[in-house]
Every structure is written in structure tokens, then in C-alpha cells.
């Protein structure tokens, strides 16, 4: 779980990917997402993942990126299983290799999807993300809520760890007993976590008020985003590639495994 979160957290760097305008990165991530959604062929999805791996390599975050993808394996296995069982038992489909293949492709797609956003979050600071959202005319209150949520995720993970340590030291064994008793065993973990989250949010609200949050309707910004040559170059590479992918999908009837 922590490996999964690690790949969704900013990792500082000075690579070309880090310095791209966050809006451009968001657009590229969405284009990658759209490409994966257009195709259900394993070859194409693999190709998308290869492209993502190259981007991750350029951003020097391959290790973290790979760990995130790897960490998502249980989730992906679950999707595969649900997809398949739903098809067989609810839709009354007969068992077939083709059915297995389709369920696999649907789960595999998720890898490409997660991988794209992992790169985005690994190379974009919460501030940059906030600036991008502001440029997209999202009201600042929502942007702020969103970026605080991102920023507090690692803090929360740490908090969870110390609560788990404290309760395990009191003899709490989370993985003992049936599902019902197991769920009950989580109460000693969830209550302190909830208390800490509530306290933290009160503290944050106070700190914001002290710093005059919302005192003026029109907000000004220290840094503003401007598209540079690098950004246009990245877009002029990404958009034609996506167009090509879309064109092939619609116009060229080829059969791929």
C-alpha cells in the first residue's frame, strides 16, 4: 500500500519532464488515458506502457513508477477476477479463452491508466497542480481542498503507521479471526485516525484564517504559468501521435492480438 502511494507523490527532480508546464502534462496524461480507452488490444496497451516507461525514464522516476504499478497488482487482479466472474455468472457467458482474454485486457488497461497518472503525480508538485487547476478556471477553494488532500496523504499514511504500531504493541492482531471479528478489530485503528484527521483539519482551518484566507475575492499569485518552447514541442509530439492512434482505431480495420 505504501509503495502504491509513493508513486502518487511528488518526487523532486530537474528533468525536462519535471519542468514541463503542468497543464501540458495533464493533457498528455489524458491523451494516454484516451488511447488506452480506445483500444482493448493487449499489444496496443503494451505499446502505451512502453511509451510511459520511456517518459518515466526521462523523468528519472522509473523505480518509484514501477513500484506503483507493481503495488497495484492486487487491485488489478481483483478487477480481472470481478470482470471475468461477472461475465460468466451474470451474463451467462460460456467459459472461453476469449472471455479470459477480454477480462485480462480490461485489467491490463488499468495498469496503463495508473502508470500515466503516476508519472503525472511523480513529476508535478501540488502547487503546480493547483496553478494548473486555477488556470482551468476551477474556483480556488476547490483547488485548495484538492491539493491539501494530496499533500496530506503521506502525512496520513505516517499517522496510520504510528497508530498501527501503538495498537499492535497492545496485542492487537489484525489478521486473526473471521471477517466480522476482523472488521471489528479495525475500530482501535480507525478511531484514533479519525480523531487525528479531524484535529488536523481544525488546525489547518485556523492556520488559514490566521493567514487571511479568503480575505479578498480576487486572488493574486506569486508564480504564473506560461507555456514555453519546451511545452509546445511536447504538445506537437503528443497530439499528432494521439491523432494517429485515433485514426488507426477508426479508419484502419486491423486485427491485433
Amino acid at each position, binding site marked *: 500500500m505504501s*509503495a502504491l502511494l509513493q508513486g502518487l507523490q511528488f518526487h523532486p527532480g530537474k528533468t525536462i519532464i519535471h519542468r514541463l508546464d503542468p497543464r501540458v502534462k495533464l493533457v498528455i496524461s489524458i491523451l494516454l488515458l484516451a488511447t488506452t480507452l480506445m483500444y482493448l488490444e493487449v499489444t496496443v496497451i503494451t505499446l502505451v506502457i512502453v511509451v510511459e516507461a520511456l517518459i518515466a525514464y526521462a523523468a528519472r522516476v522509473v523505480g518509484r513508477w514501477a513500484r506503483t504499478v507493481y503495488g497495484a497488482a492486487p487491485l488489478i487482479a481483483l478487477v480481472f477476477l470481478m470482470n471475468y466472474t461477472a461475465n460468466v455468472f451474470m451474463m451467462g457467458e460460456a467459459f472461453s479463452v476469449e472471455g479470459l482474454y477480454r477480462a485480462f485486457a480490461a485489467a491490463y488497461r488499468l495498469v496503463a491508466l495508473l502508470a500515466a497518472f503516476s508519472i503525472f503525480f511523480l513529476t508535478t508538485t501540488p502547487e503546480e497542480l493547483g496553478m494548473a487547476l486555477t488556470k482551468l478556471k476551477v474556483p480556488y477553494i476547490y483547488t485548495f481542498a484538492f491539493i491539501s488532500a494530496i499533500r496530506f496523504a503521506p502525512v496520513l499514511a505516517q499517522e496510520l503507521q504510528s497508530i498501527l*504500531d*501503538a495498537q*499492535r*504493541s*497492545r*496485542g*492487537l492482531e489484525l489478521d486473526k479471526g473471521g471477517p466480522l471479528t476482523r472488521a471489528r478489530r479495525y475500530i*482501535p485503528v480507525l478511531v484514533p485516525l479519525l480523531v487525528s484527521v479531524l484535529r488536523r483539519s481544525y488546525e489547518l482551518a485556523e492556520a488559514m484564517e490566521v493567514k487571511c484566507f479568503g480575505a479578498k475575492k480576487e486572488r493574486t499569485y506569486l508564480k504564473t504559468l506560461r507555456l514555453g518552447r519546451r511545452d509546445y514541442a511536447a504538445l506537437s509530439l503528443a497530439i499528432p501521435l494521439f491523432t494517429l492512434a485515433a485514426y488507426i482505431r477508426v479508419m484502419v480495420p486491423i486485427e491485433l492480438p
Partner: protein
Amino acid sequence: MEHVYPNGVKALDGVSLRIGEGEVVAVMGENGAGKTTLLKHLNGLLKPTRGRVIVDGKDTREATVAELSRKVGIVFQNAEDMFFSGSVWEETEFALRNFGFSEDVISKRVEWALRFMELWDYRSKSPFMLSGGEKKRLALAVILAWSPEIIVLDEPTIGQDQLQKEKMIEVIRLLNTQGKTVILSSHDIEFVAELRPRIILMSGGRIVGDGRAEDILTNMSLLESCRLIPPQIVQLTSRLGFMGIRAKLASPEDVAKEIAERIRV
């Protein structure tokens, strides 16, 4: 032994030590020296990535945290991380139920622990309604209730006032006279100076000093290399060289007497 966290940080590096029964040990060092990481090895929350940790003859890699906690009770820094029950009483009961004590033993032990930590009057109050010092005491009562042979205190003085610190010293001494081994981490030098335990000094994940408080706390260069300021009494006596007084860890009364003696001569 050695401990490397999953993110690649080597928090403990070539640490080797033996703590005997009935000892009082303070692990000292600046933030990030590896104090808490070391303590978490004592009940198996963390397992060494190299080497072995043996508690009462048992390798921690071969026992569960619950089994080891029965012997080693850790009181963590932030007391609030553990509270979830509706009352102080229930909070103290929790671990005893986990360890499978019988009902009459549970009620006896809980009563003893709450009286010992002077929380008996609060037994039906919510743990969240207690003051900071009371919360800290409850955290200790919760652990003392099952009477582990080894008691580990992670930064017991953080957020405590002077009076509470003095009480903490009393409690530690009392537990020690009952035969308990007490291991604590701290960077509160005055507190440790008053307790006078065996001190293990850590820096950058290594043990750089291990000895009696009287020796470690008067070793100025060693303390400085760990970014610790010597206790006030040591700072004072270290400046009295011209009177023929050596740097030492002694009570203010003893030092005053010694000065008076020299002046008289």
C-alpha cells in the same frame, strides 16, 4: 544488527548491544539518530534487516508482535495514537483482553494501574477529555496494566512540565525497584542527568557512546559530536577548574558544598 527502511534509508548501522535484567537505560541522540527505530525492534514491530535481536532468549523474527509485547511494553511518544475507547477503564482493559487474562485478573490489574498512575478518579471519563499530562499517564498505565518485564518509553518527557518530569523519574525508579528493566529514549539532557541511567549515545544510526551517565554526560567532546548540550551542573563544574573542581555530574547541593569547602580553605 542493521535496519534499512524500504525507502533505502539505513536507520541503524552496525548496532550491537546487550541490556541486562533490571537495568535502566537511556538511549540519547539528536532527531534521526535512530533512537525510535532501535526501540521498535524490541517488540518486533521492526525486524532487523541484518543481524538478530534477541529478547529473553527469543529471536524477534520468530515471534509475533503480540507475543513479544507481553514481555516488552512500549509507550509511544504520542499518547493519542492509541486512544479509542469510551472510558479510561475500557482503554486500560483493551490490551489485557487481547492477552487473554481472566476477568478477575483484568479488573484487579486495571485498578492497580489506574491507582498507580493516579488516574483512578477519571476511570469513567473519556480518554480524549484528559489533559496532556493525564493522557501521557494513561498511556503508561495502559502498558503497566499487563506488567511487562521490560518497559520501553519513547521520549517520555515531550510536552511535560517540570513537575510531571519529576514524577516520571519517580515512576521509573519505582518500576526499577520492582525489578523491571526500563529502556527510554530522550534528548532531554536534564531529565536524563537527574535519572542517572546507563546511557547509550547514538548518532547517524550508530552507537557512539555507552556507559554510566556520570561518564557520558561529562564527556564534552562526545556530547558535542552528538549535538547535545551538557547538563547545567556539568557546564558549571567544567568552568570551576581554577578552583580545582573537575567537571562532574552531581547534585547542586554537593557542588555548593564543594565550592564552600574550597572557599573556606
